């Protein structure tokens, strides 16, 4: 994996997480109290810094094979989680990750929650909402940076990719003062899922003692192969999914529809989320 690929993979993965964290922070800040929201965000960043400070040196204590086995396994599991969601969303079995909708629900919940402060924080609800959102998404960023950085021996570049992603998303979010609904999150999630699963598979198997045919060049086969299988699963599910059933039911002479979900206007497997709302 060259430096550009490392930077790009980490950048895209962290951008997805940053979009999700931004939605939560905006909802807490705009609906409740900005000061408490920033306090929650700062507290989460302190915890994340402590995790990095503890995990970074601790990782060097383990033999490389053990590290690759554990980290590779976790990366593969993470990648499968991302791919599962992306494929189900692309095929219509699960709603697309609608940042605008999530934002509206978060705002409604935040407005309905009772006010009150604790431990010097003016609005405890805004604090905890922001803290949990940033911590959860941040932990995934930290995990991706450490695993990709350590395995490629370039932790600095991986951290730079993550920092760039967070800064870009935060900058756009501050400028727009709205959740980033037009970011093609499902497409990004699919691409990152393929990368995480492929690298996790490669490193995990190496950690288990495998020698890949062609060494690192095997990745040039593993990545497209996993991408193709995922596209195949998506196509298969789209043919049998709710969208296909709706289209068939809507055809002349067809039986009344039993599926209530409207058909997506998109024609491609991942394009519907990219359309302006």
């Amino acid at each position: 994996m060259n430096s550009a690929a490392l930077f790009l993979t980490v950048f895209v993965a962290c951008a997805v997480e940053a979009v999700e964290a931004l939605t939560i922070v905006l909802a807490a800040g705009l609906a409740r109290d900005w000061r408490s929201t920033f306090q929650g965000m700062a507290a989460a960043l302190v915890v994340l810094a402590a995790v990095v400070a503890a995990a970074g040196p601790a990782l060097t204590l383990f033999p490389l094979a053990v590290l690759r086995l554990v980290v590779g396994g976790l990366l593969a599991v993470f990648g499968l989680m991302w791919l599962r969601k992306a494929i189900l969303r692309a095929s219509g079995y699960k709603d697309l990750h609608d940042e605008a909708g999530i934002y509206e629900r978060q705002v409604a919940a935040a407005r309905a929650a009772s006010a009150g402060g604790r431990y010097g924080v003016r609005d405890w609800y805004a604090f905890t909402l922001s803290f949990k959102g940033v911590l959860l998404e941040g932990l995934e960023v930290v995990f991706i940076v450490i695993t990709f950085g350590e395995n490629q021996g370039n932790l600095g570049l991986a951290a730079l990719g993550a920092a760039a992603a967070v800064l870009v998303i935060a900058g756009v979010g501050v400028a727009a003062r709205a959740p980033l609904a037009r970011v093609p999150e499902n497409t990004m999630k699919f691409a990152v899922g393929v990368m995480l699963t492929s690298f996790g598979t490669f490193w995990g198997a190496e950690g288990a003692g495998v020698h890949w045919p062609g060494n690192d060049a095997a990745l040039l086969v593993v990545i497209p192969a996993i991408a193709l299988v995922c596209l195949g699963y998506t196509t298969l599910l789209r043919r049998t999914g709710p969208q296909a059933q709706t289209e068939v039911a809507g055809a002349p002479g067809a039986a009344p529809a039993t599926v209530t979900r409207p058909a997506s206007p998109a024609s491609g497997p991942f394009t519907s989320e990219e359309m302006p709302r």
Partner: protein
Amino acid sequence: MSRWLRSFGAFWYDFVIGDDWRGAAVVACALALTALLVHGAGVNAWWLLPAGVIVALGWSLRHAIRS
């Protein structure tokens, strides 16, 4: 204290395992079997984990659309 431990455990379960345990279970079994084949039987089982990942994803998707 037990409530805190429960929520702490739930947080990490959700973080590592997520919505479906099938992916994690198949990956863990495939990794263990690969290590056994490599170190126990001398078989360079590079194909096992990719196959496991593809099967795990299919299994998980099949379960998701049926539930």
